[in-house]
């Protein structure tokens, strides 16, 4: 086995960050997320590799909050597209968990398949290497296994690291992973170590059959009750590693400008507001229903997997205490006989 001793971790991160922009899970101030290792400041930042996960998801590395699409010059005489903003800079995400790589898997389905390839996403994604961190100790709100994910085998990983206590087992999975292994060869040791043992999930969630059941539950009264206290604040969509809805807007000054995209949330009132005044989802109940149907049913119908990866962030962050696992449970138990 290839082993990276924890005493050599900093050296490894330094080495990797010379190859590419290296993103690591850090606690910074009062929040936590994925930040460039180069920006690490001892004293105020803390590496979170020993923690369960971080509050803000790593989707920003391949799908940033704001991204320019193309720039143009235009006036009544003529219009010219100047440049398209694909970014091919190499990046590495280190320490990403299975729930978050499964979310990236969902992103790959959305942006790279179904007739069109989103070139901005493709450029970033192709040049991003994933060093995933196998998880053996699920947290209180974790339910990735219920959503079909194996926390000890993160999907789409180029390398998987497994924490044995004083070291990481370093397991290359792809050619990209092999390249990194070669780059780190001076720091890796060749010896045996015991794979950690998987501990039980504290939170029992049963998603079996829920997607099927939801197909006939669009008009069910359960949505009235579940959506009552939702403020449609949108925090869930921002902390979710698999939420990807975006808006396209333009910034222009004089004859120049650029079109950009930015995160949008299906929870906002103007999400489906049409210029003529019609809004199919004007009510918060309708938007709430659409969000959970998308997560638990529509995405599965379209891409074969649910859009929720069981990371538990929305459960922690929701100001109204809305819990997707409770929703799954209530759907499973719902009475769908006529008149329900």
């Amino acid at each position: 086995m290839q082993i990276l001793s924890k005493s050599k971790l900093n050296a490894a991160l330094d080495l990797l960050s010379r190859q590419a922009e290296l993103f690591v899970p850090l606690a910074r101030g009062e929040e936590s997320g994925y930040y460039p290792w180069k920006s690490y400041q001892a004293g105020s930042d803390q590496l979170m590799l020993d923690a369960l996960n971080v509050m803000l998801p790593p989707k920003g590395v391949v799908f940033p909050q704001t991204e320019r699409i193309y720039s143009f010059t235009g006036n009544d005489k003529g219009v010219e597209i100047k440049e398209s903003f694909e970014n091919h800079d190499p990046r590495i995400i280190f320490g990403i968990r299975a729930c978050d790589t499964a979310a990236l898997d969902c992103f790959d389905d959305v942006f790279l398949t179904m007739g069109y390839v989103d070139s901005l996403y493709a450029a970033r994604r192709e040049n991003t290497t994933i060093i995933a961190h196998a998880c053996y100790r699920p947290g209180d709100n974790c339910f990735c296994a219920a959503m079909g994910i194996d926390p000890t085998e993160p999907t789409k990983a180029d390398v998987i690291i497994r924490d044995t206590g004083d070291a990481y087992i370093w397991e290359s999975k792809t050619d990209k992973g092999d390249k990194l292994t070669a780059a780190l060869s001076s720091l890796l040791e060749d010896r045996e170590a015991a794979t950690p043992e998987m501990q039980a999930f504290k939170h029992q969630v049963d998603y079996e059959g829920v997607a099927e059941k939801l197909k006939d539950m669009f008009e069910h009264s359960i949505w009235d009750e579940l959506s009552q206290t939702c403020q449609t604040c949108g925090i869930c969509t921002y902390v979710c590693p698999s939420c990807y809805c975006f808006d396209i807007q333009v910034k222009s000054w004089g004859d120049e400008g650029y079109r950009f995209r930015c995160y949008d949330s299906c929870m906002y009132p103007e999400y489906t507001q049409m210029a003529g005044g019609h809004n199919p989802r004007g009510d918060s109940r309708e938007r709430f229903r659409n969000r959970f149907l998308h997560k638990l049913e529509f995405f599965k119908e379209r891409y074969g997997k649910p859009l929720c990866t069981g990371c538990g962030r929305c459960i922690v962050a929701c100001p109204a205490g809305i819990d997707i696992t409770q929703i799954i449970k209530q759907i499973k138990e719902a009475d769908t006989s006529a008149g329900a």
Partner: protein
Amino acid sequence: MTDISLKIREIAARLLESGQVDMFIGWEEGEEQYQTRPFIAHRVEDVEKLVFNQYAVHNLANALLKYRDGSEKIGMLAKGCDSRGIVRLLQDGQFQRERLYIVGIACPGMKDPLAAAKSRSGFLPAVTDSGLAAKCTDCIEPNPVIYDELIGEKETPRVQEGQRFKLVQDIENMTLEERYRFFEDIFSRCIRCYACRQACVACNCRTCIFDEMKPQWVGRETSISDNFMYHLVRASHMAGRCIECGECERVCPVNIPLMLINQKLIKDVNAFFGPYEAGMAYTEGAKPPLSSYQENDPDNFL
């Protein structure tokens, strides 16, 4: 706290049974006590879930906005901050007094369920579950200012003498350069999730200025200039109207100290147009200071 919870259940059951209200807004507990959240009881059986514990921090007045166009009669619990939120809605013409039956309850100070959830989540370095929620440490009015029925013992304001605007004064004492860097650092974190706006009772415009496209006042990019604009414009709209419930800061997923900005404006409005505290009493026709004009209004900042 259990006596209070039983009393609340009695009252809610009575109101629902008699038809005096169509629904009753309060709190319920999840599996753990810290998983307390707003709850709406529609039937008498639902009242069993109502509790009032040390995590009942949410501003229930915000829940009224969903029902502003309806005609349901609504019963609700209201702590100090909730009741000031109700006054805010009444003053803004967003709700009618006749539709409400307010059960005022004095607040002993609350803990924050979000902080408790975050500290147990495994997403942050081990944080001990500290005491009072940040918003409660500056509380100037824990007793309900408007109610139809009052329960609980009268509480004293928690804010220490002379401490109310301490942090604001610290910032005021910084140089312009230092102040700019302080806010630049804070606003660069903003992910423009608009949760602060959604959680705010005073943010009740039908079409929010930040959703307006003709013209678009503030861009959607999270550039530092757009982030500054968003927060400063929103704060200006709060001047003279913010009832200091602190929900904006509590819900922020990146911990931006929003109350600092709001408190600065409260201090300024007090100084220029005061003495004035928003939402302290409902008088029909009363307007916040920036919604009315007097000839002798100070204008040396123009």
